[in-house]
């Protein structure tokens, strides 16, 4: 997951990495933003759709907990589609 493995955890860098990864995944899925936000909301997500949009366009930092929920929402949604 972390290509720059050995060095001690740089939270800022890790966040950038994760955000980039999530944003990239989102672009590949062809998932409408509103659909992702709705699902993420269902998982207990706490940020609004516009902030999610900004986050996915790498224009906004959001708390790590929310990042994890967004990633989870994307994974579950995609699993659902391949079923």
């Amino acid at each position, binding site marked *: 997951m972390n290509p720059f493995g050995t060095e001690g955890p740089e939270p800022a860098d890790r966040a950038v990495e994760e955000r980039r990864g999530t944003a990239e995944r989102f672009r590949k899925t062809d998932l*409408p*933003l*509103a*659909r992702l936000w*709705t*699902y993420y*909301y*269902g*998982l*207990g997500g706490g940020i609004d759709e516009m902030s999610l949009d900004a986050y996915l366009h790498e224009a906004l930092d959001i*708390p790590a*907990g929310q990042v*994890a*929920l967004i990633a*989870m929402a994307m994974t*579950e949604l995609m699993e659902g589609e391949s079923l």
Partner: protein
Amino acid sequence: MAQDSSLTTSDQMQDLLLESPGFPEFLLGLATISASLLGSDGSVTCTITVERDGGPATVASSSEEGRRLDETQYAFDDGPCLTAARQQRLVLIPDLKSDHRWSDYLEAALKEGVRSVLAVPIPTDPFSHAGLNCYANRMGAFSEETVALLGEHAAAMSRVLRIALRLHGAEIHPDHLRAALKSRAVVDAAVSLIMLQQHGGREGALEVLQLAAKSGNRRMQEVATDIVRGAGLPGPRRDGGQE
């Protein structure tokens, strides 16, 4: 002359597409443009009905009377306009008093002062159907010429409407909204329980749910459902459980 006016109309419809904040506003604009095509004296009311798969219909009307007429049709779940939209065929009723199809509905429409009806299908995509409905307060209000004009108008609307359905499509999926609401309720309930038991915060509780979902290869909502039903907490006892 006719060409000029239809050109202006399609410009108007494009502007409408760009300026409408949501789908209902867009449809309302289309209904108003359609009514103005048929004369500016307000003697004809236009409504537009769009039904989508698994979703509620959206109805827009150029007047209050039209809205009531469409709602009546929905109450009967049948009528000239629903027929036009669902079966994609044109329905013309020159005089409501001498027509015997949809008798219950037509009676209700007569009471509203309607004497003739024209319903034109608007082709969309395989997941939805739409129709333009015109109500007039005198019989025989729709000449052959008007019918042809509205046929062309419906074809022009078809293009913008298909774009609008795509633009505004993602927002209106009632099944997804319902699923999200249900999931949120369960997750929130589970989060409350976890917080209470661990004297912890919301973030931490969500994390517990996520970890349990990941390690059990299950969906978060399933894990949350179990917890709400009384299953033990999937507590990540990283410290060996010592308090």
